[in-house]
């Protein structure tokens, strides 16, 4: 070949490789940037529905009310200003309540005098808590507009309630979802790890080569089944079984999710830890047997210690798979956004929440941003897991040399 052409084509391929490498890294960075930009901006938002205002009488000492308290006032769980640092009981005023104070005529046919009427109501009743659309705000409003508190870090991570469509203030407590995710994933790994390890030990140390040649592709096939199919299986087989077995009102529980996720994590755990075990030098196993150790002693004392970092990596990657899984979990866990007390309760995980709610959350609204913030939490969780794997496998390399 022409040496010039050869050199040129080498440079060209090099350039292509560099470009594709750069593009991939940039995409990753972009995705992360976008996710966090959207997610973090939830903390700039007010939980109160857009276009609405909350107002109180000028004499009221309360200046700001948190989203949770706003909801509690509406639900009449808080009925007195004393709970918020004021005095007397609260009189709730919604737009439709205007008819109890003014006649249709006073308001006007086209609501042209409505702003003035609202202003008068708020001015005349000291205990009032008024909630109405911003467009009916009078130009010289005589009440005091309340600063609806921004969504804070604390309420987001510590809030016990996830009810993003609640009126008038969205309840964005991610705690039940974080806990749900952790419970379901933990359950999954507790089921999958012993089972997966047993299978890996069987395949790498005990099974005849023929058996292994059949089993391994089958297990790898398990990894290729779409998660909806797992979900169906769970819904049809596992959910009713759990309901019967534990005599529950519903079978859609965290446990059902854990079982399905456990099954889904099995191929990862089995193949990776089996590979690690098969990497144990044959001579090392033979040395153990030659010293009179039994097969089991050899497995426990030589094979497992030798492949421990691979096994750990397998477990952690399995958890990673479980944490991020969406569809199957959505189908079998019951999706109740409450703080779970036992694995036999319905639970809702972060990915399931995002998948189920993103379609109905208005673009750019609080709910929408809150879902992105959930995405950030998920991202951080998986990142921590991946870094742990990196650390473990990295430290192993260090030890070997």
């Amino acid at each position, binding site marked *: 070949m022409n040496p010039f052409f050869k050199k040129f084509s080498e440079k060209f391929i090099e350039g292509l490789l560099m470009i594709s490498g750069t593009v991939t890294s940039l995409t990753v960075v972009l995705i992360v940037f976008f996710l966090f930009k959207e997610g973090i901006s939830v903390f700039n938002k007010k939980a109160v529905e857009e276009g609405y205002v909350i107002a109180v009488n000028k004499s009221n000492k309360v200046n700001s009310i948190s989203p949770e308290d706003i909801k509690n006032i509406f639900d009449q769980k808080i009925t007195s200003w004393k709970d918020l640092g004021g005095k007397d009981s609260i009189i709730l005023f919604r737009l439709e309540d205007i008819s109890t104070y003014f006649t249709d005529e006073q308001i006007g046919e086209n609501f042209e005098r409505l702003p003035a009427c609202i202003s008068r109501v708020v001015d005349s009743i000291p205990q009032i808590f008024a909630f109405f659309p911003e467009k009916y705000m009078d130009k010289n409003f005589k009440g005091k507009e309340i600063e609806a508190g921004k969504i804070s870090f604390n309420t987001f991570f510590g809030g016990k309630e996830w009810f993003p469509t609640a009126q008038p203030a969205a309840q964005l407590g991610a705690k039940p979802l974080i806990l749900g995710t952790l419970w379901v994933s933990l359950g999954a790994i507790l089921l999958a790890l012993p089972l997966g390890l047993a299978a890996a030990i069987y395949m790498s140390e005990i099974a005849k080569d023929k058996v292994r040649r059949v089993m391994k592709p089958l297990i790898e096939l398990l990894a290729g089944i779409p998660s909806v199919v797992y979900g169906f299986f769970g819904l049809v087989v596992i959910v009713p079984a759990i309901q019967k077995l534990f005599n529950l009102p519903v079978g859609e529980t965290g446990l059902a999710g854990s079982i399905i996720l456990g099954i889904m994590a099995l191929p990862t755990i089995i193949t990776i830890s089996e590979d690690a075990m098969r990497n144990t030098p044959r001579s*090392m196993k033979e*040395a153990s047997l030659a010293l*009179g150790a039994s097969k089991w002693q050899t497995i426990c004392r030589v094979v497992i210690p030798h492949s421990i970092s691979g096994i750990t990596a397998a477990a952690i990657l399995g958890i990673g798979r479980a944490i991020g899984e969406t569809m199957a979990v959505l189908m079998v866990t019951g999706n109740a956004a409450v703080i779970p007390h036992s694995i036999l309760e319905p639970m809702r995980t972060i990915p399931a929440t995002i998948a189920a709610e993103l379609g109905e959350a208005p673009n750019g609204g609080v709910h929408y941003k809150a879902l992105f913030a959930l995405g950030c939490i998920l991202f951080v969780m998986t990142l921590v897991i991946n870094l742990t794997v990196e650390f473990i496998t990295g430290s192993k390399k260090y030890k070997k040399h």
Partner: protein
Amino acid sequence: MLKLESKQVNFYYGSSPALKDINLEMESNTVTALIGPSGCGKSTYLRLFNRMNDLIDNTKLTGEVLIDGIDIYKKGINVDTLRKMTGMVFQKPNPFPKSIFENVAYGLRVNGITDKQFIEERVETTIKQVVLWDEVKDKLKKSAFELSGGQQQRLCIARALAIQPSVILMDEPTSALDPISTSKVEELIHELKSKYTIVIVTHNMQQAARVSDHTAFFYLGELVEVGTTKKIFTNPTQEKTQNYITGRFG
């Protein structure tokens, strides 16, 4: 006294024969070297004596393999007990991913010994036996991987000696070592001879000549010639042996 013996031994991997009609006797407290070109069946033969070939699927053995006059392949033989009687040293140093101390203690522990003081004493005497004590006495708790290749191999010999076998099988124990480490291991073989029966596979003719009392020459699965090392190296009866030891093939 006759220690190791094989009578009319044939061994097959699947259907292909690896050993053909091997008749060989080895006396107690002697060193026998197995030599021959690659693939001639030396390792296969060596591994018959601690039944390591049992681990390989699809193999077949006919004939008798005897230790102390007992057929070790007959029914009712406890393989784990048999393997305790025969220590093995492999081609490459293969310490366990454990501390230096635990490597030597391993054989004792898997055989159910828990007496801490006993284990400590045995580990120390065996490491001294392989002349490694001064080099490792301060770092017994450190990983065995931190030792040099030669030190690791001596550790592996210590590991095999710790359970006090009567036979030591060595499969090219110095092929991964530098000359100094090699001569240390050879010295060790000399010393061990007084207590153990040693069979060593080697590709190094000088080594065979230096360390062994008897030499057996294998070729294509057959035992071509066996005799005192002196005779094999100075006056072999077979032409093939002559050609091999003078380096004309192999």
